[in-house]
Every structure is written in C-alpha cells, then in structure tokens.
C-alpha cells in the first residue's frame, strides 16, 4: 500500500522532470547512456578514486593500481588463468646462484611518448623508488637489492625516518651492461625474484617522469597495452589502445574508460541498466542470496584470488594468555568455516586448509592438517590438554568495513564449542586498528588479511611469519621455519616449491595464526561485452575483452 502510494508520487515527479528536461539537457543525457556499447570497441569499467598520484612506485591500492595495471607492462606478465609469470618486456631473466640476476630486454619496446624502453629506464625507476627522500609507498620492494639500505636511509628506535640519512642515490646492486641488459645483485639468494618483477612497483619509467614527477602523476606515460588519454577527477579516467604495443596479445578493444564510483552499489545498478560494462567485483548487496545470478543471467564469473583472511594472536610479550600452541589449535578447530562461508559470504570464500593461497603455483592443500578442520570434540579435548582458558577472549576487527558479521560468527562458534566467552570487538576504523597493531597495543586475537603482491608461496609466508618480517603482526618466530624459507630461496622450480610447502606445514605446530579462508570474487558485465576474464589479482584482463557490437 505504502509502496504504491510512493510510486504514484514518483511517477508524477518523473513526468514533470521529463517535461523540464525537454527544454535543454536531453542531448547530453542520451550520449552518456549509449557511450559504452558502440563506438568501435570501447568499454567502461568500474573505477574508483586513486588515493595517490598515478605513479607505479607510489601506488599500493587497487583504485590507482587497476589503472596502472593497464598502462604499464613490466618485465613479466602473469598468466590470467594460472598466475604463472611469462616474460613480457624481458627476453630473459637468468641467474646461476639466485643472487646475481642478468635481465635482458626485448628490443623494440617503447613508452607511450615514443622513447625506447632501455635497461636504464628500469634502473633509474628502481633507484628512484628506493631513494628515501622520495618517500615512496612501495620502496620496500627494492629491499632485496644490494645497496638498498644506503639509498633508503635509516630509522631511529621509534621507527621514524632519520632525515638526511640516505647516503647514496643509486643502489650499488644495479648495473647497466648495455642498452638492453642490466644486472641486479641481491643481498641474499631469492629464487622468487623473477616472479616479483610483474608487480607495479617494478615498472620502467620514461625520462619525462624524472623531469617532473608531479606533472607525470596527473598524466602518466606508460609502457603497456593502453595509453593514458585524460583524467577528469572524480568522474573518469580514459585510456586508449597503444598502437605500438609489442606484447603477444593485442587488445581487441580500442578504448577503455574507468568510471569513478564512490559507492559500488551505484555501480552495480548502472551495470544492470547496461550503463556500465564491467565490474571486477560485485558489491556485497548483490551477492546476498545470489541476487546477481538473477540480475545478470550468465554474465558473471567467480574466481579465486590471492587474498587470505586469518586470525592472528597478539605477540606473547603483549598478551601471554594465548601463547600455548595447543590452545590455539583448539580455537582453530572450534571454528565452523564452511557454515560461516555459506551463510555470511554466500559461498564467495574458500575454507583455508593452510596459509598459502590456492592461486599460486606449487600450492598444496592441507598444510594445516587436522587443525583447520571443524571438530568440536577434539577441540574440547585439546582445550583440556592446554589446561583450559579463563577470561573472555576478544577478536578485534576494523568496524569501517564488512567484518562485523563474520567475526561475530567466528566468536559464536568458538563460544559454543569450547564454552569460552568470546567477544568480537570493533575498532572504529582501519587507521586506528592498524595503529594499535603496529604499536603492539592490541591484545587477544585480531583479524589479519593479506593480499598477495606476486603469485608465489614465498609471498604468503616470509613477510608474515619470518622472524622480524614487516607484516609479522604476531611476532611469530620459529628458527626452523626461518631456516626452511631461507633454504627454499636458494632453490628453484619444484624444489623450491616443495621446500616452501615444508615450511608452511611447520606453521601448524605452533599455529602461527588461524587460517580462515581464501577469497573468491564475483565479476559481472553488461550485454555490451564478452570474454571477460579476471586475473588472480582480481583485476580485469582487458587484453581478452571484446565488445558485442
């Protein structure tokens, strides 16, 4: 009754609006509506506001990253299906000892301003990225290279940067051999080094960038299949196919527009009305009750991506009550992952049986063993063995994103099965949440997420669980694990993968963290496009997309 009354009022209002619009704005309205589908292969993609200037080495979030991904080709490109690295600008990346790497480039590649891509383009870009006073977000990606410490400068005891502490401007580990060859010497053996080189931070930069980085950040000159056309702040970023792109697959579309949305629900409504072509990730509201399958018909796909959710225990020095490994295993076995995934995430997660994402090569299921299975009886038995647990258990999350429902469900599961009082505790926002974790002030358990930088088991293990690593929020330390990953770094291929699997299994003994699940994302598209594929990073493979008209 109420609804129909609203509708009549709205119809009246709309009729008036139509009458008004007849005076003027009609034309541009029509243009906007049909801009997406026709017009010789142009597509619109859901974008969002870049948080930083469009400079690869200073972009670490997806809004800017999605655009930079299309603008830049790197030494390697990851296969959309398997995430295997394939040489792109590189002709070869070789090393005998995993320490000194010789990188040879393919001839003929150019930046979008026509200047050639040379060994110098890479070396200069990497030195710029690592140089402390430039203050780049991605500077730590150059950490493995010899000379990084001198270039990056030092920090004081409180972790603050000491001004003027960078003693060199270039890393001594990088040397240009000739126009198309350079060498990179690493501090220690890193078999996964070539795997990393497809990350945005390792992009080559043209000379124009070093002349005026600020102007460049607003109109970047890239090296990839698409070149930058225009950026209308808050509205759209426009790219066109670069005719001299040297990659194996040429894009079939010749124009792509990232339309900027502050609100992804709005984007989803646009998608349903065919006013937006591709959404790499559908919003939660569309996933609820599988609504998207009704709305979009066959025009969606879901895919595992390299994002991992876990629960980390506060370091022993901060909260000693949770340091007992058996207790941790008991908690892990009391969590009913499958039911939570089904009920809260509409199946868009994959219960984790280990710490490494299934998208990386060499993944082996079951590293966590029985401890990641839901088994209330054994959980209670382990709890008894551990001597019980007194006092409420807290599970903290940042309340500015969708974490409340699942953290509460996890807590309920623990409370119910173990009889421990578990409270999901919201922290006002991500900034506060991370500040407390970084300062080692957070007690109890807290949620930790990890999005892979490059598709390697190493990326899911070393930064998170090696002693003193940058994202080791629980201060986990296990000399055996450290030794195993160090050894794996000296090996190559399947040997290295096997060693990483071995190291991963060690984490189950102490339950370094509780693995919960790996993400799957659901992408959707309009009737104007076909052949949409999503990469393991959750971005669109625009080289494969075709238009229907």
């Amino acid at each position, binding site marked *: 009754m109420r609804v129909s009354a609203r509708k009549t009022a709205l119809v009246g209002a709309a009729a008036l609006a139509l009458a008004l619009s007849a005076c003027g704005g009609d034309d541009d*309205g029509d243009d906007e509506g049909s801009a997406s589908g026709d017009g010789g292969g142009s597509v619109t993609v859901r974008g969002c506001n870049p948080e930083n200037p469009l400079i690869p080495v200073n972009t670490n979030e997806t809004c800017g990253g999605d655009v930079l991904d299309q603008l830049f080709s790197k030494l390697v490109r990851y296969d959309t299906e398997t995430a295997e690295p394939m040489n792109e600008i590189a002709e070869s990346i070789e090393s005998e000892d995993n320490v000194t790497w010789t990188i040879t480039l393919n001839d003929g590649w150019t930046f979008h301003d026509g200047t050639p891509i040379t060994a110098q383009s890479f070396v200069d870009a990497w030195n710029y990225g690592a140089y402390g006073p430039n203050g780049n977000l991605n500077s730590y990606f150059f950490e493995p290279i010899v000379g990084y410490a001198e270039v990056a400068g030092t920090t004081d005891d409180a972790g603050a940067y000491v001004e003027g502490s960078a003693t060199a401007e270039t890393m001594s580990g990088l040397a240009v051999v000739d126009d198309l060859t350079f060498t990179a010497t690493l501090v220690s053996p890193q078999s996964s080094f070539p795997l990393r080189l497809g990350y945005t931070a390792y992009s080559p930069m043209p000379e124009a960038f070093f002349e005026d980085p600020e102007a460049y950040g607003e109109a970047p000159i890239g090296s990839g299949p698409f070149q930058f056309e225009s950026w209308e702040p808050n509205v759209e970023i426009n790219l066109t196919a670069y005719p001299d792109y040297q990659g194996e697959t040429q894009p079939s579309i010749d124009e792509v527009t990232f339309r900027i949305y502050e609100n992804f629900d709005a984007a989803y*409504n646009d998608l349903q009305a065919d006013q937006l072509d591709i959404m790499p990730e559908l919003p939660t509201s569309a996933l609820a009750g599988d609504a998207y399958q009704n709305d979009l018909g066959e025009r969606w796909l879901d895919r595992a991506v390299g994002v991992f959710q876990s629960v980390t225990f506060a370091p022993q020095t901060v909260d000693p009550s949770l340091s007992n490994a058996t207790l941790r295993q008991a908690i892990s076995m009391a969590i009913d992952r499958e039911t939570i995934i089904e009920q809260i995430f509409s199946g868009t997660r994959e219960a984790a049986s280990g710490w490494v994402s299934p998208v990386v090569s060499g993944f082996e299921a079951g590293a966590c063993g029985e401890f990641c299975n839901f088994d209330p009886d054994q959980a209670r038995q382990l709890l008894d063995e551990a001597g019980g647990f007194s006092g409420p258990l807290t599970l903290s999350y940042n309340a500015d994103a969708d974490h409340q429902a699942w953290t509460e469900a996890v807590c309920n599961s623990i409370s119910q099965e173990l009889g421990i009082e578990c409270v999901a505790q919201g922290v006002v926002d991500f900034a506060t949440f991370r500040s407390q974790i970084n300062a080692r002030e957070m007690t109890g358990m807290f949620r930790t997420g990890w999005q892979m930088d490059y598709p390697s088991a190493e990326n899911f293990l070393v930064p998170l669980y090696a002693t003193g690593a940058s994202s080791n929020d629980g201060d986990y330390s296990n000399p055996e694990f450290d030794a195993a990953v160090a050894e794996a770094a000296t090996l190559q291929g399947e040997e290295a993968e096997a060693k990483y699997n071995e190291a991963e299994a060690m984490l189950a003994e102490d339950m370094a963290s509780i693995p919960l699940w790996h993400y799957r994302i659901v992408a959707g598209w309009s009737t104007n496009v076909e052949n949409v594929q999503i990469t393991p990073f959750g971005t669109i493979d625009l080289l494969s997309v075709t238009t229907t008209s």
Partner: protein
Amino acid sequence: MGRYVIRRLLQMVPVILGTTFLIYVLVWSLPGDPFAAKCGDRPCPPAYIERMTNEYNLDDPLFIQYFKYMANLVTGDFGQTFSGVDIADELISRYPTTAQLALIAIGVEILIGITAGVLAALRRGGFVDNLVLVSTLIVVSIPVFVIGLLAQITFGVQLGWFPVTSDGTFYSLLMPGFVLGSLSLAFVARLMRTNLVENLRADYVRTATAKGLPRKRVIGVHALRNSLIPVITFIGADFGALLGGAIVTEGIFNVPGVGNMIFRGINQHEGATVTAAVTVLVLVFLLVNLLVDLLYAVLDPRIRYD
C-alpha cells in the same frame, strides 16, 4: 541597509575562523594515524610517513599547524589531497555540480511545494488538501535513501528514463535533485498551507476583501506575500544545508559533488580537504542566510534594516 550588510559581513570573519579551527582540530585529532592505514596489513615505509608528516606540518603543535594552514588558505593555497590533487581544483570541479543539484532540489521545493501548499490552503478540507496531507506524510516518514534507491531502480534500471548514476550533467542530476528535494518539499507544502490558512483569517485580508479587491489580488498580493516569510526562512536554511548535506543522495547516485568529497576526506583523515570544503560551505551558508534576511524586507514592508 548598506551598514547592516557590512556589519553582517564583518560578523562572518570570527564565525569562519571559529568553525574552520574546530573542524581542523577535529579531523586531525581523529583516533589513528592517517598514514597507518595506507599500506594495508603492513606498516608503511618510515620515509613515506616522514614525507607526508612534513607536507601537512603534523609535527608542529596544533595551533601552529592551524595557522600555517590558514596562512596558506588566505593566499589562495588550499593544499593538496593525499592523492596529490590540488584541493582548490577539486573544489572548483565539484562545487558547480553540488550547486546545480541543490538548485534543482530548491526549484522542486518551490515549484511543487508552494503550489501544493497554496492549493491545499485554498480548498481547506477538500480533496486536494487531504491528498497533500497524506502524500507529504508518506514522504516525510520514508528515509531519503529508501526514496533514492527506489527511484534509482524504478526510473533508472527498470524504465531507463534517467541515467542510473550521475556524471555531473544537468539531465543526470534531475532524478537526484528530485529525491533530494522531496523531503523538504513536504515541509514546504505543509508550512505554506498552515501559514496561508492562518493569514486568510487575518484582519487585513478581511479588510482587503471588504474594500472590494478581487480575490486573486487578495490572495496573491496580501495573504501569500506575508505567508511566504517562514517558508523563505526554511528554504534559505535548507539551501545552505543542501550544499553540504547531500552526502546520502550524492552517494546513491554517485554525484561527483562536495558531499562525496567531505565523506571521503573524513574517511581518509584528510584534514586539509575537509577543512577547505567546509570553510567554503560555511561561507555559502552565511551568505545565503544574509540574503534571506534581506528578502524579509522585500516581502514585509514593516521590516527595515538600517
């Protein structure tokens, strides 16, 4: 009149200083380091934090920070967002959109609201009066985001009459403008009706009718003009609020306006962005209110400013 305007303009200076200071302090003192969240689940490189801290003078005491900020502001330097876009540019690109949206909303309020109110008052107790009462009651009791989403799905997605989201063009702003104006429209209609009903019973209206003026003139010139004063006050205040308060509507329709900018600024702890946007808002709000006060004198000859 001139002196009155100058006095009012001078009064704005302390108001602006006070509000900007409060906003600046509040945003920068939000809990949590604004740069702690910039690197996902790992700490940001210290060199990055150092560079950003210097850029926004966060090492200085709060008062000094604020004065440095204001000194820049006075010279026209609004600073930059974290993404390196000049805040002044961003304001210039967003304000026209928000102003257009607010004007459409106000236009809807005036056109439909006042008309409905007058019609209802003239036929008190009749069909139109009841229709207006019931329909405004419904509009007032439904939250704006429900109206917004319903309109978006019905007219944007299903019927395809309007663009689902706005890119800032006039046509695409019509539907958001209607939604935004709908709530105030209801208030305007009811306010208009009550005032007019009351004034129609006033002595001067009876006098005017008695001396033989045509009904059109009695209502149009005498009763209506006087009844408009509270309505104009409401619309003036509403216009000020619409210029900054359309966060929900701008969010639903993805309007590239100031509301979205402030919302994002608060989320990302961008003190400079929020303060700049709000400073302009306060300024506009004060000017609109001055304008409303001056309009009183036009509507009611008994009011004089000197």
